[in-house]
Every structure is written in structure tokens, then in C-alpha cells.
């Protein structure tokens, strides 16, 4: 990851400006046991209380780094009911990285936030249709399947 995904200038700038980057050896106690690190790379997004909001195992291609970080930060805000902040980041993932692995989950979360904001099921129906059309093989399309009929 250091020589490929973390070496691109765009990723370096984004990481240094928007998150606190922390690298720990996968065998270091007590974290290896606390986080059950069994394979690397293992990437996590934490808040300042060490609560895990998002994680990934395996190599992350350079173009996937920023969408991954934006989705992780959005999930941190989602988990603390800061929906406006979450939505801004999700929009960036959807609009600027529609090709990324993060995009289908960003669409799903945005629909859930839309539902929570108005108690109207239309945003859930919308994400079902969008995911079926644009990401039919994504697990997120499957997760939205029940929403077609509500």
C-alpha cells in the first residue's frame, strides 16, 4: 500500500488534510488482539473514542482510497446522527467516484438518511431502483430489494 496506493500525490494530500493517518504493525499488542487482525492490509475508520465505523481487508487500489475514506467518514457522521455532514460526503462519492466500490453503499446510506429525515419511504424506493439499474450485482442492490414494495 505504501509504495502504490499511498504514494500518489492526490491520495497523500487527501489523507494528510482530512483524516489522522495511523499505521500500526499488525502484530503489535494489544491492538492485534483487540482488533482481531488476522490478515493485512486491514484498514479501519475510527472516531476519537476508538469506535470502528468502517473497515476493509485486502489491497485497496489507488483510485479507491479517497472514496473509501469519504464513505468511512460519512458512516462516522451517520452513526452519530449528523446526517447533513454525512450526505455531503456521500454525494462526493456518488458524483465523483460512481465507478468505485464505495459508490453502491453510499447510495444505500443516502436513501436511508432520506427516509430518516422525512419518514417518507420514497427515498428507499429510489435507492432500490437506482441500485438495480446501476449496480445490479452489488450486494447493496440485494440489501435494498425489500424496498421496491413499500
Amino acid at each position, binding site marked *: 500500500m505504501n509504495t502504490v496506493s499511498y504514494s500518489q500525490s492526490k491520495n497523500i494530500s487527501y489523507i*494528510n488534510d*482530512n*483524516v489522522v*493517518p495511523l*499505521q500500526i*504493525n499488525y502484530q503489535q499488542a494489544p491492538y492485534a488482539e483487540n482488533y482481531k487482525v488476522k490478515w493485512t*492490509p486491514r484498514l479501519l*475508520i475510527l*472516531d476519537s473514542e476508538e469506535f470502528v465505523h468502517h473497515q476493509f481487508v485486502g489491497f485497496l487500489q489507488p483510485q479507491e482510497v479517497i472514496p473509501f475514506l469519504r464513505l*468511512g467518514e460519512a458512516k462516522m457522521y451517520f452513526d452519530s446522527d449528523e446526517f447533513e455532514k454525512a450526505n455531503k460526503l456521500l454525494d462526493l462519492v456518488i458524483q465523483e467516484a460512481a465507478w468505485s466500490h464505495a459508490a453502491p453503499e453510499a447510495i444505500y446510506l443516502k436513501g436511508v438518511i432520506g427516509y430518516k429525515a422525512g419518514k417518507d419511504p420514497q427515498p428507499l424506493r429510489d435507492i432500490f431502483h437506482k441500485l438495480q439499474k446501476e449496480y445490479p450485482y452489488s450486494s447493496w442492490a440485494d440489501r435494498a430489494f425489500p424496498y421496491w414494495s413499500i
Partner: protein
Amino acid sequence: MTQVNWETEMGTGLDRAKKEGKPVFLDFFNPG
């Protein structure tokens, strides 16, 4: 900026996250 400015201690990372209002991006790595 030519490289990522990684923290290497959990406590320092969490303190910075609180002060700067940012998430922590934790990378468990294998130095090989």
C-alpha cells in the same frame, strides 16, 4: 507533500482526532 504523515501511536492518533475533529484512518500493516 511527498508522503503520508503517519502517526505510529494509538493514543497520539486518538488525541489528534479529538482536537482536529477528524476520523482516524488506521492501517494495520505487515512490514514484510
